[in-house]
């Protein structure tokens, strides 16, 4: 009996109720799950945190490794970074009220991530201008969705060179904001603890890309669905009570987004307010995989930019959202249609920051490959020949009776000495009425 409950990863498996159905193994895009001894087992190195297994498990055995929201109460100076998809989870509360609700919950400051995403978008526009006309360096692939980033490094390494070579905004944010806040309050940087409020399990792993190395502060992730009930209560309370001045935004990055800045949580939102018109916006894991394959075959070079989101419809489809994705989309639209308040950014400022190479840290192709590249041991040509020989002996049902998601993966497992051919159940029971190639 294996119990992989405490693995330092994006998801945790509780083997108690696991029936070994194998649905999770089948859905995993990096083939990171096997059934061993009738229970799911995660190959931690292969997990990219997409969250598909969480949704597909009929028993609810798979959970994200987020932390309970209450733990923010035990830190002296909690601040919270808000993924803009949060506003889509509320129909009757404005983004401003949602942010105040978080402060009412005890967070000292709220940081609306779309504030920084807008800067990032500006950097993307400039990058495309610098590249010259297509097909040079095209299509540029968005790095906003961390799952896409890991998927590319893991399964499509030849596309690493097409990734937008700009430090992901989260990294810029964490550094800047923490320093800024510490300075403002004259407190030690280490006193600040940073929480992410997230729609997906991807940022759960502190070893992940989104955190700067050697960061002194605690960084934790909270799933939107873990905080939703309490946040809702706080919002209702503040809507019914006279204005509490202490909940008002202090810094510019605390102000709620308006207009198209609200759309970051849905597919197409990244480029909705930009000058980039020659683009494709793709969402859903299967679609993402299909188009990554095509780009690797040399297609879509005439397009400037591809926005990928592995969750269907974008972050509103994330496994840790509280509200149905189509309902959430409609909610957002309602917020967008509200009259605009002031714009937050001055374009010239962003241009200056870009010129200072403010956005360029060190996300080089080589670094990407090192961080996320092939973590499986490569096979040799001889190994592959043996894999093919084993495949010829197998029934080819792709039934997962062996505990691997499909026959090909199983055959590779046998060569990697991770499985034995006797584990193929149709082969064992003689239930093999195919064969002959």
């Amino acid at each position, binding site marked *: 009996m294996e119990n992989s409950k405490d693995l330092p990863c994006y998801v945790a498996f509780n083997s108690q109720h696991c029936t070994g159905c194998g649905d999770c193994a089948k859905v995993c895009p990096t083939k990171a799950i096997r059934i061993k001894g009738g229970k799911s087992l995660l190959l931690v190195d292969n997990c990219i945190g997409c969250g598909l297994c969480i949704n597909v498990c009929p028993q609810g055995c798979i959970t994200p490794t987020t932390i309970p929201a209450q733990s923010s109460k035990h830190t002296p100076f909690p601040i919270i970074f808000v993924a803009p998809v949060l506003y889509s989870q509320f129909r009757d509360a404005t983004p401003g009220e949602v942010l105040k609700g978080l402060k009412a919950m005890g967070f000292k400051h709220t940081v609306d991530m779309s504030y920084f995403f807008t800067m990032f978008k500006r950097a993307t526009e400039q990058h495309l201008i610098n590249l010259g006309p297509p097909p040079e360096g095209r299509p540029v692939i968005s790095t906003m969705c961390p799952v896409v980033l890991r998927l590319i490094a893991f399964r499509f390494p030849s596309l690493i060179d097409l990734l937008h070579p700009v430090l992901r905004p989260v990294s810029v944010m964490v550094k800047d904001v923490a320093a800024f806040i510490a300075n403002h309050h004259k407190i030690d940087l280490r006193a600040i603890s940073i929480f992410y409020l997230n729609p997906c399990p991807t940022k759960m792993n502190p070893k992940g890309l989104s955190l700067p190395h050697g960061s002194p502060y605690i960084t934790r992730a909270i799933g939107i669905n873990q905080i939703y009930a309490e946040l809702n209560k706080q919002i209702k309370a503040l809507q019914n009570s006279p204005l509490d001045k202490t909940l008002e935004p202090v810094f510019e990055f605390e102000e709620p987004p308006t207009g198209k800045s609200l759309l970051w949580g849905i597919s197409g939102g990244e480029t909705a307010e930009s000058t980039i018109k020659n683009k494709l916006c793709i969402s859903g894991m299967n679609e993402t995989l299909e188009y990554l*394959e095509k780009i*690797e075959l040399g297609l879509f070079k005439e397009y400037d930019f591809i926005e990928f989101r592995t969750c269907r419809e974008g972050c509103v489809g994330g496994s840790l959202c509280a509200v149905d994705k189509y309902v959430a989309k409609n909610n957002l639209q309602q917020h967008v249609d509200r009259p605009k308040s002031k714009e937050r950014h001055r374009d010239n400022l962003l241009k200056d920051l870009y010129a200072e190479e403010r956005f360029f840290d060190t996300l080089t192709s080589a670094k990407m490959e090192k961080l996320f590249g092939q973590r499986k041991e490569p096979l040799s040509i001889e190994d*592959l020949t043996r894999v093919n020989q084993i495949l010829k002996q197998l029934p080819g049902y792709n039934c997962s009776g062996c505990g691997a998601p499909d026959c090909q993966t199983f055959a590779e497992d046998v060569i990697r000495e991770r499985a034995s051919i006797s584990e193929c159940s149709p082969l064992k029971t003689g239930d093999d009425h195919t064969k002959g190639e």
Partner: protein
Amino acid sequence: MGSLVKIFPIKHRDFIHAGKPSIEIKNILKTLNTPREIIRRVAVCGYEGEMNVVMHARNGQIRLELSNTMIIIKITDKGPGIPDIDQAMEKGFSTALDEFREMGFGAGMGLPNMKKNADRFEIRSTPEKGTTVRMEFATGER
């Protein structure tokens, strides 16, 4: 010294499955940890070759041969052949049907790109018999 040969059929006018063989070839190369720059070149060449059979020839096949130092892709078809190879190799030359152009194909860059991306490129064609494109990619010692 290992070597491996795999053959995938290509069906004329089958746009749904076109590209699948090249995707499988990519996957094999990835399992072997082939440098990403070589994977990219092999993928582009395989796909362009496949599409030429799908659009311009009749049924054919793509053959992958791997050795410790070399990747060889050979695409053969039993098509109408190419009457003027020099002309076909020109950038932008294409006899693709309008319907294919509507689908986004037929830019006339396939053969030139294959030649550019392969370390060695050979094309042979006999009218009414068919066409063979052979491409080599050096991988160095594995």
